[in-house]
């Protein structure tokens, strides 16, 4: 209705869309295909689109070669707890900012913007030194602390939006009815905020699940490393990688974030736009 595109234009549009879909999907399909190919097919000079004799050998071999299970558990533990702490810590601040204006909001905005910009190396060196002094280097606890702060800016933005979406009038009505401040928060605000809290938690979970740089620097013992770090071990020296297990492990590492992201993608878009443009 909005556009009055002719049939030729329409065809062009669909062609462009098709190109985009192929560009998006092709590398991922290739990863999946590689993950299920037997070693013989991977060694062939003429790769085929689909595995001719699909196999699960690569997955078995991946688990044999690297402590994938352990790494997955480490990632899970770090991501779950970091996300939980981040949401717990960010929610009160988001509430304060959303309900009041002034210097606090300006400072928080400034920090969020600036924190997007500094190169992590400038933060990770001092963190490395400090965590080392605290004997928290090479420990998931130390990593979780870093992830909490790392996930905070965006979590804060998402939450501020969600708090604003809860009509202030509802809280005021509850106050008029004689509910105390705490009661209002617990019985009026919190239930309305719950979906937003979950979305924010999921977002923080993914950020931590996917994170690589801090984990690479802060975790040295193989048994303590997270999944993204362990994945790089498959690459071997000078990239002489065993393609099948590499693809299999990489594919597995993606599944949780894809699943979670599928649920919250729309909500993140709003948060991102708000965070990027509005202040």
């Amino acid at each position, binding site marked *: 209705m909005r556009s009055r595109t002719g049939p030729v234009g329409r065809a062009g*549009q669909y062609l462009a869309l098709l190109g985009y879909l192929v560009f998006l999907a092709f590398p991922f399909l290739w990863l999946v295909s590689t993950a299920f190919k037997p070693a013989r097919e991977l060694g062939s000079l003429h790769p085929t689109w689909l595995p001719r004799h699909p196999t699960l050998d690569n997955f078995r071999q991946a688990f044999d070669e690297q402590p994938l299970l352990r790494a997955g558990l480490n990632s899970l533990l770090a991501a779950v707890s970091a996300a939980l702490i981040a949401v717990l810590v960010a929610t009160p601040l988001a*509430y304060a900012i959303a309900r009041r204006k002034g210097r606090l909001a300006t400072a928080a905005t400034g920090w969020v913007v600036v924190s997007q910009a500094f190169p992590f190396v400038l933060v990770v060196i001092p963190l490395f030194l400090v965590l080392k002094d605290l004997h928290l280097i090479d420990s998931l606890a130390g990593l979780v602390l870093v992830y909490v702060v790392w996930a905070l800016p965006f979590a804060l933005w998402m939450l501020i939006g969600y708090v604003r979406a809860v009509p202030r009038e509802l809280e005021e009505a509850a106050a008029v009815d004689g509910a105390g401040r705490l009661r209002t928060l617990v019985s009026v605000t919190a239930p309305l905020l719950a979906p937003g809290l979950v979305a924010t938690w999921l977002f923080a979970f993914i950020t931590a699940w996917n994170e690589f740089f801090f984990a690479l620097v802060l975790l040295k013992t193989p048994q303590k490393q997270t999944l993204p770090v362990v994945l790089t071990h498959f690459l071997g020296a000078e990239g002489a990688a065993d393609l099948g297990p590499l693809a299999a492990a990489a594919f597995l590492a993606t599944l949780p974030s894809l699943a979670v992201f599928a649920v919250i993608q729309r909500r993140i878009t709003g948060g991102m736009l708000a965070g990027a443009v509005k202040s």
Partner: protein
Amino acid sequence: MTLTTARARSGRRFGGGSGGRPDGVTGGRAGPPADRGAWLLVLPALIPILLLSVGPLLYGIALAFTDSQAGRTAPTRWTGLLNFRDLLHDTLFWESFRIGLLWAVGVTVPQFLLALGLALLLNQDLRLRWLARALAIVPWAMPEVVVGIMWRLVYHPDAGMLNETIRDVGLGDGRDWLTGLGSALPAVIVVGVWAGLPQTTVALLAGLQNTPHELHEAAAMDGAGAWRRFRAVTWPALRPVALAITALNFIWNFNAFALVYVLTNGGPGGRTRLPMLFAYEEAFRYGQFGYAAAMGCVMVAVVSVFLAFHLVARLRGGEDG
């Protein structure tokens, strides 16, 4: 609807904290937290932010003026601007700096142009639109490490689909994309564009959906062609989002690490050694903490220019829409 939060805030806008705004009136209402309460709300986040973000950042900047090294027994000393003077003469660093700029521009610009086209496209009533949205999740949600691994499989000289396609079409034998001196950087840039495209597209799409319908229709009625409508209606409304996203993308790309670490680890011969890779090696392979921190400072200085850009775009966004 995509714009949960953006919509939520459109009713009562946030004026960058300027107290003189009319929305200061709301302060007169029975707003829940009193002053003392407000501090209790702020502290849980403030403490970790100060201890683990602001603190380390300042400490990091301070380190740039010292000779801090890994595993050194002698105490760390202030060396003033020595690190920066050394950096000035470090041709390898400037080379990586140049590569970082090339990469950041090389990724950000095509990414924006493609994303803009796609956002306009996806704003139309097309049948496969849902699929494009669904697939957009893939690059967006993937760990960067996996994106790198995935593209290594695509670029693989023998077992990769890219070269096989080139051979099938009869364009030659293909090449070893990631280890070729000339092809490595472009190959890595393509991956960078791929990885950030959906995010940029979706942001621009959300911005498009915020532009007023009526204006479009009025312009169409007046017989304005597609280009005129874009120039006169779409772009002015989209500009704040576009500027903010582009500035952020540039900053993120300039500071990129994981993707290139996995794809090439800076090779071949340093052709894809981004500044972050360089600083990482300096700090954690050679243990030169002070020197690496100085590199970080120089990177911050560059990025601040774009940050200022971003802030301006942000403030404008707050005023316009």
